[in-house]
């Protein structure tokens, strides 16, 4: 259940691709000069961007194998801190405990911002009573005290139907969960526990799309991919009622439910030419590809800053060696 269907397709195409290339030893085609494996894992929210980048990268460097897992930000950092992956996708900055685990295993790393994302609060298209949520209503619905108490739509706002509310959200290993709880409940990692929790956003989409009384939250990109099956709810943040979109996330007005997305790369990985090439390629193309898969690109100068950061990181590491 962890691996998404597109991951399977991706692996399948990768295999077909390699099979197709296997017999071809001629040098007339540009296959790229590099070889090796790049192992990536982490946030399911960052996954679509990384996957899009990897797909393009594969066209340039055909002999480099890029594998991308989706264990959630926390799950990804766990592998990253054990040195099992070269790059970790993250939808929040690394936590102190995770940084400590990296240090323990002598893993140095660099954080690179790659795009912005908004968190979408979504309901079923058949829901005709919700027009918007206030932050207080979202808090009342998701805070730990709601567990076993706030169970019906009518409890959130007077006039809403006296029907059971079915909640869907990312599980505790997800950076989206940490971010949402921090923004809404006020403390990262604290929420009610009686909801359908899954690290696989497609499960959440499926659940809400099939349930008139469903409500859930996940990254805006997954809403963009499933627009016709879900309805987006604008959020009243006290200043204005804002619906998440490319513009409102970019200009910061969709606060507090927008955030930056990151990739983390470790020192041993960055020292390998194929990983370095991949990161360079990532930062060059993340803007265009992020927009393509439904995220919001950083400003161009911001990508330049990330590139500089990466160059410095590599030089420092080389100087040490």
């Amino acid at each position, binding site marked *: *259940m*962890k691996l998404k269907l597109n991951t399977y397709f991706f692996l399948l195409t990768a295999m077909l691709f390699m099979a197709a290339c296997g017999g071809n030893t001629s040098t007339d085609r540009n296959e790229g000069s590099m070889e090796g494996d790049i192992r990536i894992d982490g946030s399911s929210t960052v996954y679509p961007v990384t996957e899009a980048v990897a797909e393009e990268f594969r066209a340039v460097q055909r002999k480099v194998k890029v594998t991308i897992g989706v*264990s*959630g930000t*926390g*799950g990804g950092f*766990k592998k990253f801190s054990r040195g099992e992956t070269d790059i970790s996708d993250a939808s929040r900055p690394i936590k102190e405990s995770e940084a400590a685990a990296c240090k323990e295993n002598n893993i140095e790393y660099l954080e690179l911002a790659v795009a912005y994302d908004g968190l979408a609060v979504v309901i079923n298209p058949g829901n005709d009573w919700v027009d918007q949520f206030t932050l207080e209503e979202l808090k009342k619905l998701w805070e*730990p*005290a709601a*567990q*076993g108490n706030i169970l019906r739509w009518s409890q959130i706002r007077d006039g809403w139907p006296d029907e*059971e509310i*079915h*909640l869907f959200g990312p*599980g*505790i*290993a997800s950076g989206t969960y940490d971010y949402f709880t921090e923004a809404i409940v006020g403390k990262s*990692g*604290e*929420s*009610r*526990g*009686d*909801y*359908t*929790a*899954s*690290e696989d956003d497609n*499960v959440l989409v*499926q*659940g*809400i*799309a*099939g*349930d*008139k*009384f*469903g409500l859930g939250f996940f990254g805006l990109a997954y809403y963009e991919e499933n627009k016709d099956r879900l309805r987006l709810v604008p959020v009243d943040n006290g200043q204005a009622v804002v619906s998440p979109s490319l513009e409102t996330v970019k200009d910061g007005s969709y606060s507090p439910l927008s955030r930056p997305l990151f990739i983390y790369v470790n020192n041993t990985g960055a020292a390998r030419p194929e990983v370095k090439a991949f990161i360079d390629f990532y930062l060059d193309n993340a803007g265009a590809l992020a927009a393509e898969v439904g995220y919001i690109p950083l400003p161009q100068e911001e990508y330049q800053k990330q590139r500089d950061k990466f160059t410095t990181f590599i030089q420092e590491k080389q100087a040490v060696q």
Partner: protein
Amino acid sequence: MRAKEKLIEGILFLCALITIFTTIGIIWVLVSESFLFFREVSIIDFFTDSQWTPLFAQKHFGIMPLLSGTLLTTFVAILVALPLGLTIAVYLNEYAPGKFRKTVKPLLEILAAVPTVVYGFFALIVVTPFLQSFIPGLSGFNALSAGIVMGIMIIPFISSLSEDALYAVPKSLREAAYGMGSTRLQTSFKVLIPAASSGIVSSVILALSRAIGETMIVSIAAGQQPRLTLNPLVPIETVTAYIVQVSLGDVPHGSLEYRTIFAAGITLFVFTLILNNISFYVNRKYRQRYE
């Protein structure tokens, strides 16, 4: 020659030993890990608390929501599989021509050989939308659709084993029934089924323990929300689905949260063990009666 015999005997014995040690190993892990769990969580809370949220801020360790999920899907499955399976068994045994029976029975058993992940997606993508077309308010994940598909999966357990049991009813009984002027239907339902009842019961129990332990279908189609309810229309979570969720997730090994899966596992194990023992007992009784 003698040495060779001894060697072969030794190898055979070793093979038998491996299975026994595996079982002992599993039980040992389950018991020792759940022992550590129950040192921190009282067993009374475990069975009386009506909420199960060990991974969240407000921790509750009540197994009942998970057990109710398991029992609910199992109940739906048996509701589907028992009438269908038994009818098929009676038909094959009493009505179908011998050749037809010989071809259809293995074909039916293919149902049990379909990978359960396929059943799971079938429930989620085909059965649930179909049910939603006439059950308004049915959630995208629900116990009903998972239960129905699970019922289809365990039909062969009931039909095949019940058919064997019906087949094993002594000819004299059947002939006596016909001799008294009974119709086929009367013979089947009034004579053969009661006579084969213990075999049928044990087939149902086997199917039950298969349904209780079933994991993939319920993980995919029944939802992931522990909920103490008997309503088959809303998302629930079974014991097995919970174990999958935690095993794949982010929970640190050795933590209390991690040990919950062993506590859940041993509960499940005890359930199926009891059922298997009942089945064994019923079966033995059956043999004494007719041989």
